């Protein structure tokens, strides 16, 4: 019986632990595992695929670990003992080979998924993409909709099934823009514009976050993403556009001052070139060759 004490403790602990984990995750629907947009969907399937591929190595490792440790314990007189057995070309070829096959297939998947899910890549859909310019500030998000002529702080209304083409920058230390329900995050940096293309496919309220620390109020940078049908979105944007609160550069500088727990603002946009002006703040000392183009699509020159 004594030799069974440790195996019983180990197996008992393992079951106890699994029970706790089960209690924790039961009923939860993690955003990354239950996404609400096409990009997130693909990423979720990729995640599942890697888990399955890895299982081909992990399960044998765990089995062998348990079986070998038990069978070749020194008190087991029945087990063979071969102290000099230390090389076997066939076996070693197998365990170089199997990981090579798994990693090769994963590498192929990686290559293609890196391209198909490249955040720069525009998403093809029935509707033309909604353009949103995102500025990370200390410690809130400014969203500019140049085509709708509106801007919001800490709230991101979107239209369902319509792709969104984000341009992301920061007027703060490096931050990162992430809406797990939709997929892909991207860094937001000073004086350069990164691109992110996503599409929401379900209506509802989701949450976005900043994933990169940018100072004291970093944890406050959570914002609701309200995905609504097309007509509702049109109605809302019209309402905001007629708001008496307008956003120009002077007002922007007010907003950009560090603040925590900033409430939602909805403003009409009076300066359509505001995003470029924010980028250019970091360009005026020379050094970079900044494209002075007004055309919003031409930020890539500043990217790297």
């Amino acid at each position: 019986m004594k030799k069974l004490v440790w195996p019983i403790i180990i197996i008992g602990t393992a079951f106890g632990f699994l029970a706790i984990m089960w209690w924790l995750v039961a009923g939860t629907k993690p955003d990354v595992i239950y996404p609400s947009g096409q990009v997130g969907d693909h990423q979720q399937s990729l995640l599942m695929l890697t888990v399955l591929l890895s299982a081909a190595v992990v399960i044998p490792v765990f089995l062998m670990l348990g079986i070998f440790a038990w069978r070749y314990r020194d008190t087991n007189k029945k087990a063979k003992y071969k102290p000099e057995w230390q090389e076997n070309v066939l076996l070693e070829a197998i365990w170089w080979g199997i990981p090579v096959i798994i990693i090769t297939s994963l590498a192929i998947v990686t290559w293609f998924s890196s391209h198909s899910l490249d955040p720069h890549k525009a998403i093809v859909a029935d509707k033309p993409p909604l353009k949103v310019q995102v500025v990370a500030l200390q410690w809130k998000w400014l969203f500019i909709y140049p085509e709708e002529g509106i801007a919001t702080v800490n709230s991101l209304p979107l239209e369902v099934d319509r792709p969104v083409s984000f341009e992301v920058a920061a007027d703060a230390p490096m931050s990162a823009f992430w809406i797990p329900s939709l997929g892909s995050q991207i860094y937001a940096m000073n004086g350069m514009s990164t691109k992110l293309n996503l599409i929401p496919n379900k209506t509802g309220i989701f949450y976005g976050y900043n994933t990169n620390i940018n100072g004291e109020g970093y944890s406050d940078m959570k914002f609701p993403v309200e995905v609504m049908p097309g007509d509702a979105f049109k109605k809302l944007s019209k309402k905001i556009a007629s708001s008496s609160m307008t956003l120009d550069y002077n007002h922007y500088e007010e907003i950009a001052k560090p603040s925590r727990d900033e409430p939602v603002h909805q403003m009409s946009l009076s300066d359509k070139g505001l995003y470029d002006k924010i980028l250019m703040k970091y360009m005026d000392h020379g050094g970079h060759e900044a494209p002075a183009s007004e055309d919003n699509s031409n930020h890539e020159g500043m990217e790297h």
Partner: protein
Amino acid sequence: MDLSWLIGRLGLEHLPSEPATIGAAIGMPLMALAVVAGLTYFKKWTWLWKEWITTVDAKKIGIMYGIVSVLMLIRGIGDAIMLRMHTAAAGITGGDGLFQTDTFQQVFTAHGIIMIFFVAMGLMFALINIALPLMIGARDVAFPWLNSFSFWLFAVAMILVNFSLVLGGFSNGGWLGYPPLTSLEYSPGPGVDYWLWTLQIAGIGTLLSGINFIVTIISHRAPGMTLMKMPVFAWSVLITMVLVLLAFPILTATLSMMTLDRLFEMHFFTSEAGGNPMMYVNLIWAWGHPEVYILVLPAFGIFSEIVSVMARKALFGYKTMVAALTAIMFFSFLVWQHHFFTMGAGANVNAFFGIMTMIIAIPTGVKIFNWLFTMYRGKIKFTTPMIWFLCFVATFTIGGVTGVMMAVPAIDYQVHNTLFLVAHFHNTIIGGVVFAFLAAITYWFPKIFGFRLHEGLGKIAAYFWQIGFLLAFMPLYALGLMGAVRRLDNYDNPEWTPFFVVSGIGVLAITLGAGMLVVQIAYSVYKRKTLRDKTGDPWDGRTLEWSTPSPAPFYNFAVIPKVTRRDEWWYQKLDGVKSLKRSDYKDIVLPKNSSLGFVIAVLVGLFGFGAIWHVWWLMIVSMVAIIYFAIRRGLDDDVEYTIPAVELYRLDKEARG
């Protein structure tokens, strides 16, 4: 009166203001005072100076590294407890948790720096210093004085990071301190400078150690020990030190540029005036990624020794093990960009680095299979180090899987910088590095101190570490997938609270495990007579360190052994060990103690302190003194002494009882 020429920007406003930090600020000087009082009362100052501070004996330096690292492990766990109690409390109360955000951010920055630089690296150098020269049949390292200097740089850096608690506070920019957050514009205070100089000084110490151990392994192996007859631990150290040699200069250069930015308002990494923070991110990870392999490769080496000794069987696939180590060394320099796939590089760049990253999984997987087949048809003794090994394989494998997942850029876009990432790297660093180093402490302890650590207590410690690890980090994987980002100090999603609470319980279980280790050491010291290692070979070992008496004498080997095969000591035992004849003993030459390693390191610390507080005269004076003492050391020819054969014979007989 303007005293800024004298005290720079030092001032009373930099004293801590929050209860937690005030406690530390009062507690630490009190502890220091208690140590000073104790040393004075027991009249131990001369002993401390002669036996420890000025020593150049690798084993003693190793012990000092070990003591510093264990103390820092306690501080690092203390930080972890603060972090997880804070996030659990923030959820339960729905408020802002226990500490101010600034304190919370300083704590996680310090936790990272302390655990990586002063616990993992410290324990690594402790174990290398203790085991490596003995293992390759060397009397000491190649440059014993340099070794002492490296250690004291490490110790001085450790004092700086802790001193920041008392005066000025630490950086709150995360362990790698990305600018612009850590630039003058956003962080003008001394915290970032503490961080910079701590890393800079510890980094230089590490680089010097790297050179030292490469030369030691290349030129100080026992006669007959060709590279392919070296124990795998020695191989892992060689490869690690090559990584140190290649990677640490990048750290030194990067931190120097940042120092210029901060001290002289230059523009290497600023957002304006031509500076480029993305350059910093690239450079810091060009060092940072090899760094994680610098930690884990010696861990692989340690387990290669332990599994083979405990299974009483030759290590399976020695040549593939060496090949795998070399492959990991090579690829570890081709993957740094995977730390920032989300910075927006093109798909080709991301895919390249992603694929390079997953390729590393191949040699790593091969090593795991080789270890498993070392157990196969062995005769396994379930000693404490072996228990750590089993925990390691189970834990590290899971960490490897999540690593491969994050190596796919498209997946990384969804988990980067979340708690999933935090769970992943703790999975590999605790499961890989910490478990290995704790196993190695148990394994080599008798060689250094002459008695074993208590087995039962060690196993209980391993049990709590393992279960604590699972409870602390598995919920973090889930939280990451739910949208919880790293470094989060408050949240308003009640669904997350139970996860943070379980994680907090896990940290307490790990603390219990760490406490068990302290109890184990204390109890073993108390029971040292019954636990005495009389043979010098308590585990029925295979490598040369077990051929010496325990504790290993200061000259390591009275007569340097001749090596004809791998696992020389194991086969010597099978053939019957020949005892040494009187005529085998020859005069040996050993390095003399020197105080200059300590003195110069202290001056380096003062230089750093001056730079942190802008005390220019202190920087100038200490730099002049550093140069003076360095030249003095260089001109000193009287650095060795001889032990005559007669004396050595007597010492050896005495050591062997």
